[in-house]
Each structure stands twice: as structure tokens, then as C-alpha cells.
């Protein structure tokens, strides 16, 4: 029986210092690739001697009969010839992740402590705005944590798994920072403790709540990534960024520092998602079908994401002046978001995302 995946076959003695599937590649494998590929899925590499580029052959789990519930939960409607070849542009692995995040946390702590020492109270209209906007956000972030946990369980790619896991952990970070800041604000100004009622019943939060709930009943891990990273985050995070700007101009350095630090995490999510979607649409074999599937998902999730920002977004008119939200939305939906889709090769699905 001829076997495709071969070792180099040379007698021992020479230490190769590389992995077999990376030999013969023009570009040396990075540390990130070697710490992330193949650790988490039953996939084996083809060697460059067999193919023109290293590809991977997915193998079934031992227990193929153990499909829990609906069959093949590790399959998505998204398809790709070699999932292990996805590369996170930021090259995050565990070691640089915890080091970087600890640095960020320390920085936010210091900035918040300094802001306290300055003893400058932000305006009362700002505080009132924050009461309504900030504390319930924890639930939106948490719903992303749980949805991404599901993806971690099933995604058939070690490198996508790593990107998702670190993102899920970032969302946990955001949840905790929002809670801490809310406690701080409540101690100072009072009135930050009815966030749960706002989230459950407040009309401006219902689209966000609905998004959170619907996101977590999904069974297609690919749809979760698209709904979370291609619809939700590109709409809600710019709004949070806008709030961060308003925080700075309203004398709330503690909040603005927190927001800009959390945004560095979100931008990382944007970058890996861009690379992921780009990879999917550029696929020779599956590009067209992926574009179709993503377009279909966008037509469902994009309107929901728009409803979400239209729910809580207008709150910023109360401190930014009337028209502030309208200008923000025009720019975001009219310019930024189409540019994002263009960047990842999804111009053809722009029609799916037209919303009145």
C-alpha cells in the first residue's frame, strides 16, 4: 500500500531541526505556526515533496460514531481545503497572550487609579448616560464568551481554535472590566445597580438581548464566528469606541482608558476575522460556496446587528448632541462596513446588507 505522507527516509545522524512538513518551504515556519498548528485536530500534514504547497489531510476522530446530537457538529457550512493553514496575523499563542494582557490590565489599573487621584468629577449628564449604557454591556460581552466556547469545542482547526479561545478570553476580560468600572461608578455616584432590569426590560436593550440569545442557540460554529465577528463586533464596537471618545471629552479618563484598552483586543479580533474570511472567499474550491453561505448569514444577522446599535446608539445624542448618532450610523453603515466587506472580498454580498 503506497502511503502519501512520508518521512525523509535518510539514515539517522544528522539533526534536521525542522518538522518534516516544513522542509523544502521557502519561508521558514514561524514560532507561532509551530506552537499552534496540529495540536488540536486530527489532521496530518502533506509534505512539500508530495504537493506544490503544504496542505493537510483531515482525519476522523477515533470515535466517529460518537456524534453528539445532530451529526457532524464539527462540520460547518463553511468549507475549506486545509483548515490548519489558517494563520492569525497577530500570531497570538498562550505565552504572548498572557504577557500582553497582564500588561494591559496593569496599565488600565494605573490609569484608573490616577484618574481617581485627580478627583475630577465628570458631568452629571455623562454619569446619567453611563448608567444606561455601560453596565448592561456585560451581558452582550458574556454572550460572546459562551457562543465562542461552543466554537472551541467543535472547530476543526487548531489555529482557528487558538484565535477563538483567546478572543473568548478577551471578552471575559471586558465583562470583568465593565463590572469593576460599574462598581466604581456606583460607589461614587450611585444608580449603577439596575443594569439587570435595563437589560431584561429596557426597550433600547432588547435588540442586544435578542442577539445574545439567538447567537447561543446556533449549532454551526462557522455561523457563530460570522454572526459574532462579521456582524456584531464591527457594529457595536465602533459605537463603544465613540462612547470612549465622548468619555474623554466629558472628563472621564478612567472610562476612556478602559475603553481604548479593550478596543485593542477588539481590533485583534477584527484582524484575525479579516484573515479568516479572506481565506474562505479566496479558496479555489470553496470560495464561491463560502461567499454564498456568508451572504445568507449576513442577510439574517446584519439587520439584527443594525437593530442593536439603533437601540442603544441614540443614547449618545444625550451627551454628544442631537444628530450625533445619525452621523455615526451614516458613516459606519454607509462607509466603514462596506469597506470592511470589500477588504475581505465580500463585495458581492453587499446587497444582503442593505437595511433601511
Amino acid at each position: 500500500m503506497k502511503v502519501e505522507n512520508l518521512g525523509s527516509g535518510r539514515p539517522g545522524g544528522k539533526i534536521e531541526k525542522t518538522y518534516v512538513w516544513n522542509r523544502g518551504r521557502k519561508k521558514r515556519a514561524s514560532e507561532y505556526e509551530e506552537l499552534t498548528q496540529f495540536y488540536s485536530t486530527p489532521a496530518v500534514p502533506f509534505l512539500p515533496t508530495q504537493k506544490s504547497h503544504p496542505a493537510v489531510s483531515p482525519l476522523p476522530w477515533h470515535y466517529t460514531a460518537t456524534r453528539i446530537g445532530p451529526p457532524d457538529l464539527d462540520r460547518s457550512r463553511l468549507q475549506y481545503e486545509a483548515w490548519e493553514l489558517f494563520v492569525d496575523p497577530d500570531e497570538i499563542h498562550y505565552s504572548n497572550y498572557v504577557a500582553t494582557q497582564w500588561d494591559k490590565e496593569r496599565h488600565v489599573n494605573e490609569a484608573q487609579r490616577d484618574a481617581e487621584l485627580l478627583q475630577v468629577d465628570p458631568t452629571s449628564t455623562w454619569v446619567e448616560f453611563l448608567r444606561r449604557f455601560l453596565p448592561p454591556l456585560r451581558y452582550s460581552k458574556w454572550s460572546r464568551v459562551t457562543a465562542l466556547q461552543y466554537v472551541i469545542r467543535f472547530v476543526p482547526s487548531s489555529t482557528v481554535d487558538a484565535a477563538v479561545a483567546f478572543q473568548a478570553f478577551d471578552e471575559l476580560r471586558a465583562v470583568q472590566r465593565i463590572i469593576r468600572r460599574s462598581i466604581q461608578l456606583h460607589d461614587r455616584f450611585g444608580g449603577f445597580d439596575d443594569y439587570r432590569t435595563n437589560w431584561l426590560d429596557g426597550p433600547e436593550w432588547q435588540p442586544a438581548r435578542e442577539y445574545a440569545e439567538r447567537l447561543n442557540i446556533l449549532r454551526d460554529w462557522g455561523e457563530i464566528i460570522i454572526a459574532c465577528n462579521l456582524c456584531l463586533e464591527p457594529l457595536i464596537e465602533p459605537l463603544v469606541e465613540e462612547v470612549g471618545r465622548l468619555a474623554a471629552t466629558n472628563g472621564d479618563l478612567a472610562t476612556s482608558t478602559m475603553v481604548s484598552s479593550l478596543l485593542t483586543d477588539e481590533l485583534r479580533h477584527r484582524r484575525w476575522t479579516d484573515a479568516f474570511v479572506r481565506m474562505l472567499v479566496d479558496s479555489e474550491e470553496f470560495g464561491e460556496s463560502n461567499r454564498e453561505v456568508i451572504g445568507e448569514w449576513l442577510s439574517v444577522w446584519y439587520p439584527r446587528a443594525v437593530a442593536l446599535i439603533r437601540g442603544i446608539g441614540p443614547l449618545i445624542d444625550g451627551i454628544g448632541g442631537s444628530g450625533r448618532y445619525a452621523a455615526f450610523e451614516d458613516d459606519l453603515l454607509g462607509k466603514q462596513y462596506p469597506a470592511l466587506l470589500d477588504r475581505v472580498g465580500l463585495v458581492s454580498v453587499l446587497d444582503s446588507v442593505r437595511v433601511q
Partner: protein
Amino acid sequence: MAGRNGVGDDLSRYTSDDWTGEYSRISVDLQDGDEARAIAVAAEAENDDVEVIESLGYITVRCPDRLVIRQEAVEEALGRPWNPRDLQALLSAYAGNITSAGQDGLWVLEWLGRDSKPEATGQDREASV
């Protein structure tokens, strides 16, 4: 090396119907260094019958039923401030149940069988929200 009554050659008691288990000592294995040694000193000050056993790379601190380690005692032995949560980074093995993992500056390990009750550990003192 052996348990309180020794493990030995005859293992039949572990599978006899009337054996109900017997406690080994409470213990913690800590990666060796200044901190571990200070923790051992703190443990000796607080608890009776503490043994400290050295291995290559870690020390074992053990005592019969309950092990309490206090932040202040560790700081005194160490000669500098010490975050009690840092014990977790050194803790490579333990026997017993961890009922306090640095809350209120306390680490507590104990068995929780029929004759013992866990000490009330840091209840959630939720901030005024």
C-alpha cells in the same frame, strides 16, 4: 513515604467490604525557593506536627489534619510583602481539600469527612450593587 499506617505489601484492606478509608496527611508540594521555604516556616508556626520533606525541585509540607497558612506569617519569614495568591503558582500537588485559596490572606487545606466541618471561607461579600 507511606500513609499514616503505611501502604506496604498487603493491599487487600483497600478492597475489603468493611474498609472505610483512612486519611493520609494533609500536604502541599511547593516548587522550592525562598517563597516555599517561607511558607514552610509559616506553616510550622501555625500548625502542630508539621513535617517538611525535601525533594529535587520541590518541598512537601504536611501535617495530620488541617493546614493553615497565613499571609502575615509568610511575609515575616520572607522579609517582604507577599501576595497570598502567589502560592497557587508554586503549588504542584496537594492532599486534602482546599477550602480557602488565599481569601483574607489565608490558605486552608483539610479533610471534609463526617467528623469535620469546613471553616466558613470568604463568603461573597458583594460590593454594594
